[in-house]
């Protein structure tokens, strides 16, 4: 990853969100789950923490694209949930730029949370487990294998 590349804070125009909400949500969920399962396959996620995720329902909402993805972790795999029938155990909501900044390790989730750019609701301890689990992943190995994460 180019160390000089920085992702600016931005917000997409509001019409994109209203458009995005009308589009099918399954591609987001599939892409997200594929990424997480790739990390699983490379044994990047610690087993102790993964057991805490079993059968939990997660929702990631991208505010300025109007997209959202729900997924769960069951039997050693992340699985998309296309029509969630209950409130998620843990929900994230932020603009696209905040997620990109988190993914690139450019910003710290606490910073985004303090500045109200990242919303975390639901089971707070589960949120902390997920956050710390992702923080502990040595992403460069992942970005070597996932061309999408290369810059």
């Amino acid at each position, binding site marked *: 990853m180019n160390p000089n590349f920085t992702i600016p804070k931005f917000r997409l125009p509001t019409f994109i969100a209203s458009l995005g909400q009308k589009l099918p949500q399954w591609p987001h969920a599939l892409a997200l789950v594929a990424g997480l399962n790739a990390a699983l396959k490379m044994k990047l996620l*610690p087993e102790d*923490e993964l057991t*805490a995720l079993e059968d939990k329902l997660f929702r990631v909402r991208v505010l300025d694209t109007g997209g959202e993805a729900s997924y769960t972790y069951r039997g050693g795999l992340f699985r998309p949930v296309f029509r969630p029938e209950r409130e998620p155990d843990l929900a994230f909501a932020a603009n696209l730029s905040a997620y990109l900044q988190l993914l690139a*390790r*450019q*910003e*710290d*989730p*606490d*910073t985004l*949370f*303090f*500045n*109200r750019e990242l*919303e*975390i*609701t639901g089971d*707070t*301890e589960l*949120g*902390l*487990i*997920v*956050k*710390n*689990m992702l*923080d*502990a*992943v*040595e*992403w460069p190995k992942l970005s070597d294998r996932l061309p999408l994460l290369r810059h």
Partner: protein
Amino acid sequence: MSSLPELICPAGSLPALKAAVDNGADAVYLGFKNDTNARNFAGLNFDQKTMSEGIRYAHAKGREILLAINTFPQAGRVADWQKAVDAAVDQNVDAIILADVGLLDYARNRHPQQRLHLSVQGSATSYEAINFCQREFGIRRAVLPRVLTLAQVEHVIKNTTVEIEVFGFGSLCVMNEGRCWLSSYACGESPNTVGACSPAKYVKWDKQPGTMETRLNGILIDRFGDDEPAGYPTLCKGRFEVEGETYYALEEPTSLNVLSILPEIIKIGVKAIKVEGRQRSPAYVTQVTRTLRAALDSLANGSERFHVKPAWQAELSKVSEGSQATLGAYNRPWR
């Protein structure tokens, strides 16, 4: 001009440790994945394997690893804390940071060659207390609680041969370090007992249109408007109604930032500057380490032309709790 103080940075994970080393920390402090340290949060900290790898990484680049065993052994479980000390020695850490006098005594007798630091949780604010720990346990360094003015820090330094470490950046709480029970008041658990202030399982963020409420074990801590900065969900940073007025009755969410008084801190002979935040992500460690390294390096040739660059201030303000910073007690006119 005294020599530059060491920069001591936090790590809650291997990527954070590597970020600290790569961005110029002289030493990185860590904790085990259990309640022997005061950042015992789910998924955080080091098991034996990741710690060994981290130590190898730091030592290969000539940096030190300090291990915090800074909670107090609980009744019936003293052996768990003693085992942590033994494990730290086995890991070949450069120093162990201890708070409890019983544990200091154990470490001193069992591992006389091991370098020991007195933790901020040991709550030693006077040179008498520090010199006592030097005489009895052979401590080589003490981390001062964040309650002293700069003049008081200088007074301590002048009256001890123990190295003095002070905090330079990070979240502030009520700073009753090692003695705070506010978290226990709300939920029966505190840093001293379980290694975590306001454990996450008691925290609830409740988002409603236009507001967000924070509750700790059901107690309403704060209510934020959509544009207001948020802080950690601790009692000391809540807004409460006192005699008809609702305000931050104990303390506002804020971070300590000593950039503007770095020359004075160096001048009085501080040996090391510590950054708070083992619970934060590698991104935070990178940003804060990089900034303080640049500021310290700019002082290497004297302080006459030192000025705080706006970019440093902007970088640190961004990661601050409540998005604001203070000099804390250092520049307090009263004692």
